[in-house]
């Protein structure tokens, strides 16, 4: 029985390489090890210079997304065995600039996050002393799914539109905008529509649904975008037919 598996890791150190090269390592093939355990084995035992991000190892911090054999995957939630006999090819998430080895630059997303106003917008704040805003379990269920995003960036890597059109706000950020739009405590729908209706990306979204396919938290960004298109079209028709109702 094979007791090891080969991992081919994309290496890129800007001081040394002008472009990424692959480096192979043999790691123990243990039934309870995930790919991230394999990477840590490399880091601890074979090559201290390999760089990658990770933290919680329980699929909730969102740090350890990478391309595994060409697919975006959370490496803490993917067993080595499911890729046996290997080799396993590991690359940084695609569609992002690479900082070093498996570390990508996610500043673009961080900027986009702010533009969709992911916070409760209200005309009037109720004083905290007056207690909670009432929200029924059904109202909670309306937006709960879209609140589960861990910002792992797998959907951006999977999205063919984002790959071609980096201006596109993108699946996770739009899903988050919907999360607040659908929250009964929020009144910021119009603000966000204003921003997103200019987003060429939404209209270029072909609803291939790759983003929802790869989402490890079942957020369904494709569904969120679809709802936006509907709401966007409705609001456009309204502005034509009922311009005084702005």
């Amino acid at each position, binding site marked *: 029985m094979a007791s090891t598996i080969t991992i081919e890791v994309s290496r890129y150190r800007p001081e040394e390489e002008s472009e990424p090269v692959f480096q192979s390592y043999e790691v123990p093939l243990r039934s309870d090890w995930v790919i991230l355990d394999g990477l840590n084995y490399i880091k601890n035992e074979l090559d201290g210079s390999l760089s990658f991000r990770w933290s919680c190892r329980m699929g909730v*911090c969102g740090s350890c997304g990478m391309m595994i054999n060409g697919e975006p995957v959370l490496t803490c939630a993917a067993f080595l065995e499911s890729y046996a006999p290997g080799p396993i090819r590991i690359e940084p998430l695609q569609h992002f600039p690479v900082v070093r080895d498996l570390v990508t630059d996610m500043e673009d997303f961080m900027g986009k996050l702010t533009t969709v106003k992911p916070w409760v917008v209200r005309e009037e704040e109720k004083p905290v002393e007056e207690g*909670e805003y009432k929200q*029924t379990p059904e109202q909670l269920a309306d937006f709960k799914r879209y609140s589960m995003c861990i910002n792992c960036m797998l959907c951006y890597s999977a999205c063919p539109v984002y790959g071609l059109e980096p201006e596109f706000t993108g699946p996770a950020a739009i899903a988050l905008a919907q999360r607040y739009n659908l929250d009964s405590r929020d009144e910021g729908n119009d603000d966000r529509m204003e921003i997103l209706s200019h987003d060429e990306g939404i209209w270029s979204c072909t609803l291939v649904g790759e983003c929802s396919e790869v989402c490890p938290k079942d957020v369904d960004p494709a569904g969120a975008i679809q709802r936006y298109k509907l709401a966007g079209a409705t609001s456009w028709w309204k502005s034509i037919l009922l311009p005084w109702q702005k």
Partner: protein
Amino acid sequence: MFESDPTLTIAVVSKVYPMRSHTVSAEGGAAAVIKPNDSLEDHIYDTISGADWMCDQDAVEAFVNEAPKEMLQLEHWGCPWNREEDGTVAVRPFGGMKIQRTWYAADKTGFHMLHTLFQTSLKYDPIERFDEWFVTRLLVEDGRCQGVVAVELATGRIQPILGRSVILSTGGCGKIFPFTTNANIKNGDGMALAYRAGVPLKDMEFIQYHPTGLPFTGILITEASRAEGGILVNKDGYRYLQDYDLGTPHPKPVLRSMELGPRDRLSQAFVKEQEKGRTLEGEYGHYVHLDVRHLGEKIIDSRIPFVRELCLKYENIDPVKEMIPVRPVIHYVMGGVHTDIDSATPLGGLFAAGEVACVSINGANRLGSNSLTELLVFGARAGRSAAEFAKAHQGFTNGIESQVLDEENRLNTLLNSDGTEKVADIRSEMHETMESGAGIYRSRDTLEQSSQKIRELQERYSRVKVEDRSMTFNTELTSILELGYMLDVAETIIQSALQREESRGSHQRTDFPERDDDQFLSHSLAYREDDGSSRVDYLPVKITKWPPGERVYGEKK
């Protein structure tokens, strides 16, 4: 705060993007009195008795009084709390709490709290973020903290970030131990930074084991699984907690009883059960079973869906059909940077809040669902205190520049050093000695052995091997710096545990099995000496209205 004072500017410096912080992993809930059948007095008493009277009662009173307001504030900011049919916030039972008062967002409470806070912070322009900047030193001059030195990970740039006041909120240090629920980033950074700047670490001997972690990964199976009715059984299928003064078994969960007893007592019962040969043995040591099968798929999926997801994805077990293997796992450190009730440390301009700090409200054993609330209450207090301090202290003093140069030199020397000791070796030997010497049960012998070992590791650490000399996202460098933090904090844990010759809460000495209020109703304060050793001093515990009593769980006798 910005609404009250628009002149303030704030820098958030974090070694990971803020939404990656470890609060994200907290599952069960956050406690605050909100229901008409509950009372502030009850929450105070549960917290104090849970803490085995090691907490400061004035701090607990402030905490419990302010908790509902801070939790409501988070609700107003959009936190998706679970709800009752009438739209009010729902609460669930939790270990050591006599009344249901734990707010929850399914079993991803920490995740939702963190994301809500972070997303809300994005609307405030005066907040400038330094994402993925790793802090290596506090700048202390003229008796006050005036900022930090940090490395920008993407570029390797070393730079001072000045601040008229500084708040540490870096969390705990679970990674000092081998088997922990803590994320990779929990290395006691803030504790070590303060300790090296002369600030004492308080009550470091009190480390919480959570009774139900998955073997190997240490992934936490939330207490909510027991609150919903999950039971703990030994290899014979017997609910063994009934043998350890924790009440008698009932089909439905009973508050402050059996599986809903406090974490320290449950973890200790596991060790006793192991000694009797009644646990199961697997590849990663001994374990028992957590059984939630009788709850049924519907309850499991609605109340503890993350538990099922974690078991399926990481342990290949379906809790709807199978029992979950669990063992005690390092979860939380009650101790931390010594602060007062206003989150101020003894060093001017330095404040701390959350797990990094010790106010103390958690004493010798924290109750589940108090820590998330603690972040909010003492985080807000720290913010107010820091703002006041900043307003009273304009400008920065000379002399800081030379400290920054010193620090640059230190880091560059390290990066270019020629050591031979592997960071992973030192780290795993530290893990081993901390578990064997300072685990659930300790004694003078085990602690002295660990103390010696940590000294040896400190010495070897000065010759640590550096393979990666790149300035770009050098995670070997950060691992080395983190190991340095952990070794310093490990030393304070051992010395504080050695000096405390009694057993209380999570600190159990086999050679001193009784609680000793005459000698030890005091907080330990570990100070760093010039030679790197710890000197332990004491500060009396503040008692306001609740004199030390017996901790009673299960039915009253």
